[in-house]
C-alpha cells in the first residue's frame, strides 16, 4: 500500500467518525456544548464519557454521517470556536481531575473568512500553549486524517496513538505538490516524502503506538477503548509533575536529532 493510498483510506467515507468511536468505546456519553465566547461548533464534539466505568473528558472532531449532517459539521473542519470549546472542556477536566481523551479525524482547521476573522491561528496557538501544562493525563488518537495545525490543536498529549490507516501531515499531499511543483498530480510523490503514515511517524517519535486495523472496525474501536483505559490508568499512576516534564520533553525532542551542528555537507 503506497502512502497516498493510506491518505485515501484515512479519508474514506466508510471510516467510522469520532462519534461512532465514542459509542463503541463508552458505556455513556453526555455532550457539553459551546465555547462561552461565540458559539458552538458542531465540527468538534466534547463532553463526558464513561470508559470502563471511569469518567473521562472526551473530545473528537466529527465529520458527520449523512449529507446534511456533514454540511452542518463542516465536514469536520473546525472554526476557532471549536478549538475554544475543546479548551474550555479540557480546563473543566483539569478542575475535576478527569483524564482527557481526544480523537482526531479532520482534514484541517477550516480555511475560511470567518475563521480568520475570529482568530483561527490564535485559537490553535492557545490550545498548544495550555495543553502543555494541563494537570491531568491527555491521550490523543489520530483515527483518520490528522490535518496539520487543526489536528495538533487536539494532540498536545502525553500519549499519541494512530490507527494503521491514519494520515498525520503538515499539509495535504495535493497542497504540497501544487505549492512545490505547481502540479497537484505529483500528490503521490509528495505523500511518499511527507512522512505522514503511522509506520513512518512511529520511529520519528511523533506517535507512540500504531493501532492495528486487522479486525472489523467495530472490534478495532472496542479494542481501542480497552487500550485507552489501560493507558489512562497507567498515566494516572505517574506523579503529575513528572508527567508534565515528560510531556514537555516529548515535544521538546521533536526533530532535535535531525539537526546537524557545524559543517555544511548535507
Amino acid at each position, binding site marked *: 500500500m503506497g502512502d497516498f493510498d493510506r491518505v485515501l483510506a484515512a479519508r474514506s467515507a466508510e471510516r467510522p467518525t469520532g462519534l461512532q468511536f465514542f459509542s463503541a468505546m463508552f458505556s455513556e456519553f453526555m455532550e457539553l456544548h459551546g465555547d462561552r465566547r461565540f458559539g458552538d461548533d458542531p465540527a468538534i464534539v466534547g463532553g463526558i464519557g464513561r470508559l470502563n466505568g471511569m469518567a473521562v473528558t472526551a473530545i473528537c472532531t466529527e465529520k458527520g454521517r449523512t449529507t446534511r449532517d456533514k454540511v452542518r459539521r463542516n465536514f469536520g473542519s473546525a472554526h476557532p470556536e471549536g478549538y475554544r470549546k475543546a479548551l474550555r472542556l479540557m480546563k473543566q477536566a483539569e478542575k475535576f481531575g478527569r483524564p482527557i481523551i481526544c480523537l482526531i479525524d479532520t482534514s484541517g*482547521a*477550516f*480555511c*475560511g*473568512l470567518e*475563521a*480568520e*476573522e*475570529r*482568530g*483561527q*491561528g*490564535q485559537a*490553535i*496557538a*492557545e490550545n*498548544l*500553549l*495550555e495543553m*502543555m*501544562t494541563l494537570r491531568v493525563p491527555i491521550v490523543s488518537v489520530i483515527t483518520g486524517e490528522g490535518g*496539520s*495545525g487543526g489536528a*495538533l*490543536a487536539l494532540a*498536545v498529549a502525553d500519549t499519541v496513538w494512530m490507527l494503521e490507516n491514519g494520515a*498525520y*501531515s*503538515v*499539509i495535504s499531499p495535493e497542497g*504540497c505538490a501544487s*505549492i*512545490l511543483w505547481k502540479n497537484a498530480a505529483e500528490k503521490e*510523490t*509528495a505523500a511518499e*516524502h*511527507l*512522512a*505522514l503514515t503511522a509506520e513512518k*511517524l512511529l520511529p*520519528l517519535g*511523533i506517535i507512540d503506538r500504531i493501532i492495528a486495523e486487522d479486525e472489523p472496525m467495530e472490534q478495532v474501536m472496542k479494542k481501542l477503548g480497552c487500550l485507552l483505559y489501560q493507558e489512562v490508568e497507567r498515566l494516572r499512576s505517574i506523579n503529575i509533575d513528572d508527567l508534565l516534564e515528560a*510531556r*514537555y520533553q516529548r*515535544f*521538546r525532542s*521533536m*526533530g*532535535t536529532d*535531525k*539537526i*546537524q*551542528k*557545524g*559543517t*555544511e*555537507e*548535507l
Partner: protein
Amino acid sequence: MLNGNIFKKALNSLEETGILRPGAKPQTPDRLYIKCDACKAMLLADELREHLYVCPKCGAHMRISARDRIHMLFDEGSFQEWDADLLATDFLHFPGYPEKLAEYREKSGEKDGVVTGLASIGGHPCAIFVMDPGFMIGSMGTVIGEKITRVFERAAQQKLPVIGFTVSGGARMQEGTTSLMQMAKVSGAVKRHSDQGGLYIAVLTDPTSGGVTASFAMEADVLMAEPGALIAFAGPRVIEQTIHKKLPAGFQRAEFLLEHGFLDKIVTRDRLRVTLKRLLGYHRQEDGSYGRL
C-alpha cells in the same frame, strides 16, 4: 552534497542587506534605485536605507533581513549570536530540498530562517529571535524550532525578557510532520518561560502565516505588528480557493487584526525601538529582572 554555487559572482552590497525578496530580480543593474512594490515609486537606495526600508512616498514597510533588523533596532554592538552553527538536514530525502537549502544559504547568507541571541535595547537586556524573510520566507522547520525553543529556555534560566520578530510562510513541508511538531515544541518553551513570569513581546511582520501564526506568533504577552503586514493562519489564496469568493481589501492585514482584537498595537518601524524600550521599562523590577522572573 557540496554547495555548487561557489563560482557564481559575489552578491552585491544591496543584496547583502537583504531588502530584495527571495527570487526578486534586481530592478536596476547598478542598484542605485529600488522600486516600491506598493506604489511603484523609484526610490534612491541610500535614501531608502536611511528610511529603514520604509517607502518615503507611501509608507509601505518593505521586508528586511534579520541582520538588518537587528542592526537598526538593538543597541550598537550589543548583539551576541546563539546557535549560529545549526543546520537542517534532508532526513526525509525530500526531492529538491538539499538544493533549496544550498540555494537559500547562498542567497541569504544565513544558515536557516532565524537569527537568535542576546541583545539590549536602550540598555535593557533581552533574548531575541528574528526570523528572516530571505530564507525560504521564514519557512519553519527543525532548526527554527530548536533555535527559538532555546531562546525561551535560556531566557527562563537567565531571567530575561524575549523579543521576537516573526515572518513566515508557514511550516517547512520538506521536513514533513516533524515541522508541524515544532509548533508544539516552541509553545512548550513559551509556556514555561511565561509560567515563570517571563515577558514575551512579539512583533509580527509581513508575512506571518500558517504554523507560526498558529503557535508562537500569537502567544506573546504583548503582540504588535508593522503596518500593512499580512497576518494569517490560512493565506488569502487558500481561502479564496476554499470559499470561491474574492476577499475584501485589507483582509488579514495588521489593521484588520487590530480591529478584530488580535493585536495590541501597530507600530511603524521608526517607532519600534522607542516602543520596545518603554515596554521593557514598564516590566523592569527593582532587582533588575523583567516581568516576575
